[in-house]
């Protein structure tokens, strides 16, 4: 959840909420932990800090986990309300006399209040111990947690939805997690007597994670989605936002195990198209090492599997498209607020 303000200086804040949504192990915690690194590496003059000790501790711990220990953060096991304040320099049009308009700088300042919920709370059915069958919100589950999570997402103004194509290849459960939560969000939005609209009002940043994974990168390369930013000193490959939606749809269609191909349709059914944007991301980025100063096609894998099945990070992390979804959401929400 995020609260956002575009006042300079901010005197009052209208809270806007951004939620992070994704299947278990889709990289939600890592995404958030990489945010600090992404902010630091960003060419934009961004600033992020925790609003309390716990959020600051979370950010510091997980950033150190990624950069120093070269480990991935452990999966979140309990609901932890976290909140950061983020400053984003931006510009806005200002009406002048005689009908003229001018552009003036504005400092978008918003709080990211995040309920870093474990992914299993977002499934349509419980997957305790990897087995399906029990209702997600069964009696033995603390009622407050799923309710809080669904309530959180339903009340969000912006949502970061993480789609893990690697997990989809092996587990095929993206749609399962997606559609259950989506139904409950719709229930809370439209089922309380309010005037129903055709679509959910939230802005949705669909983030395809793990571009650094060889299978994802190769598909991007072979599909012609790969681009390079000439301003990037590392020349990391990316997928341009304009073609990200197509790449996402292609990845969903490629799922052999589940029904991920239904996810794009569900997004278009439940969200307003102008409020949806797609990003192809990587929390840790590609490996650059061995004396190289830029991306190397033959040796780029940064996540190294270990004998116990866990992964460690091979070299420095270079997050790709981690901060951009939040920037886009912030701008969208600021526009909403001004309107």
């Amino acid at each position, binding site marked *: 959840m995020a609260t956002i303000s575009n006042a300079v200086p901010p005197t009052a804040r209208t809270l806007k909420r951004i939620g992070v949504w994704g299947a278990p192990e889709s990289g939600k915690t890592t995404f958030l932990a990489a945010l600090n690194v992404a902010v630091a590496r960003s060419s934009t003059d961004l600033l992020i800090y925790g609003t309390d000790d716990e959020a600051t501790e979370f950010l510091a711990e997980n950033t150190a986990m990624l950069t120093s220990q070269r480990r991935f953060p452990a999966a979140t096991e309990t609901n932890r309300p976290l909140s950061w304040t983020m400053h984003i320099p931006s510009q806005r049009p200002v009406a002048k006399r005689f009908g003229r308009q001018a552009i003036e700088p504005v400092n978008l300042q918003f709080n990211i209040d995040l309920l870093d919920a474990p992914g299993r709370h977002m499934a349509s059915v419980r997957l305790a111990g990897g087995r399906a069958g029990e209702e997600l919100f069964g009696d033995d589950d603390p009622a407050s947690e799923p309710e809080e999570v669904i309530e959180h997402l339903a009340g969000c103004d912006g949502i970061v939805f993480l789609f893990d194509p690697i997990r989809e290849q092996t587990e095929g459960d993206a749609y399962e997690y997606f559609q259950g939560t989506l139904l409950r969000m719709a229930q809370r939005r439209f089922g309380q007597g309010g005037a129903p609209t055709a679509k959910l009002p939230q802005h949705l940043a669909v983030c395809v994670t793990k571009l650094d994974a060889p299978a994802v990168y190769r598909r991007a390369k072979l599909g012609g989605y790969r681009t390079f930013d000439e301003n990037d000193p590392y020349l990391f490959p990316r997928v341009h936002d304009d073609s990200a939606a197509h790449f996402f749809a292609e990845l969903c269609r490629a799922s052999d195990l589940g029904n991920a191909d239904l996810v794009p349709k569900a997004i278009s059914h439940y969200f307003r198209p102008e409020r949806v944007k797609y990003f192809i991301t990587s929390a840790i980025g590609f490996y650059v090492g061995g004396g190289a100063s830029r991306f190397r*096609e*033959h040796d780029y894998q940064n996540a190294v599997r270990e004998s116990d099945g866990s992964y460690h990070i*091979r*070299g420095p992390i270079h997050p790709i498209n981690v901060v951009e979804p939040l920037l886009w959401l912030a701008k969208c929400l600021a526009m909403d607020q001004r309107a």
Partner: protein
Amino acid sequence: MPETGGTRPVCPVCGLPITEQQGCTECSWTLRTPRRSGVVSAEQRQEFDERLDGARRRLDASVAAIMSPDPQRFASLIRGGQPTAAEWKAARQAAERATAGAVTDERLRAILAEVLSDVTAEPDMVIVEIDDHGITIARVRLDGFGSPLLHRPEPTLAWQHMLPLLAKHADERRFQLAGGFGSADRDELWTTLSKAVPKIGDDRVTVICRPPGWQVLDRAAELISRQAAASRLVRAVPAADSSSLAALIDGEVATAPLRRGYGLMVAVADPVTKEVHTQVRPLFAPGDRPGREVSVAARRVPGDRGDVTLAILVDGNGATQRQEQPMVVAAAIPQEPDYRISVALDGPGRIRITEPAGTRPQERPWLEILAEVPHQLDALIGPFDLVCAIDLAGTKAEVRERRGLVGELLTLLEGEYPQAEMLRVSVLGCTDHVFSPRSDRTNVVRGAPLAPVGEARAMLTGLTGADVVYPDAAPIEDLLHKTAGLLSDSHRQGRQARLLLVGQRTPHPRAQGPNTPIPCPFRYDWRAALRTLTDSCAVACVAVTDKAPSRDQARVWRELGKTMLCHRDATDARQLSDYLGILPANSPRIPIPLAISN
């Protein structure tokens, strides 16, 4: 007047039958004088007796002097009493004249050597020995080795059987043989002798008569010599050591130089074509004399524990490798990979194998054994260069078993190839690439250059294991790269190169792929290294995995184990040595010595 058998009067001195002559034609004894009147007085009789005794004594003394220089040796057989010193001296002088021309023992040996060297395949050379025991006939022919072989088909013809009229007593008979006939009928003696001497036939004859001057012996020698168209009569003095002529001939045969060379049948293998052919490796050359000992270096085909057949053949003269009757013995093949066959020449046709010990007659037909020599050895006999490359990362048990298998193999090979020139081994071990910025390019291969097996075994004990840090691949590509360097010159040096790869995980790729492990930090290309090994270096690659690999792994391991891929539980050191072709299990045996190339 004495008579023989009471029928024919003979000379009272020498026993020659009396004729119409007044004096004995042999000893000049006056046989007839004009009659005179009156009674023979005692003085006249005494004077006659003394004169007769003297004549007899002088005659017998001359016989005794031929037989012995000792006047006392046959004194009892001398009629007329003990000869005076003057008489004995005269007798000895006469004996010397009678035996003049007799050859010495040394000269006799030389003559025998000439005779033996003159032996040809046909006809036989006959050597007749005539001595105081009788007449002995020996035939000398060439044996299968082209050496004179003395053959005595019949025993000695003893004088007492040939000439029964001679005295029964040995000394008396010998005295008679030497010429002391006494009153014996000389005509009958010669007649009997001429009938009794053996018939030799058309063979070439050499008659050895000794001692010289013995009348019966000389006459017998003449009779036999006259029978043959080509004969040689040799009168010889008795041997100083009283050795018989047979012993003398045996000695000459034994010490005679070889007339033809001898060789050992061996197999020779071409290290390139692996074809096997047989050849006779020379041992002794014509002219070599007994006492010489030579050796041939041979090699046991690794793994062969059977018998080896040693066949000595005569070289040249068409007596080729297919000679049907060589001297053939069998022996247990020595345990040493390289061994020597030492052959001593005891004499013509007499060969003694001094190495290997424990030879025994080969009971199987030689040609049957010869037919078992294979035309080709599929897996040949080196020299080999072997690299044992082990993934040292894994659980302690896994690493222990991998090292154990290689250790067993090296122990087995050390017994067969102790010398570095036949087998050089390098043991390499790798631990995992550590994918972190500081460790990425750390060398993960340990090992030593090619060395004798014993040193490689010591190296193996120093290769300790490590934990797996990257489960999806092992630095097999680093091992292959290192191996390619070690074996790059082997083929050029005529050495057969082998690689044994032991592990479970597959190599890192050279470049990142969609479903591949992280690439090798050194960018080694395991397929390129493998191609270099198998194509350029002609390396045979055997791979051993801990267990059956997964489907994806199996595809890679099949490439790595191009020659053979097996699992550790289903193989052992003996099988591995077979797969590697270093100790081929089913290689045909070579029943004769495999010679080391000159």
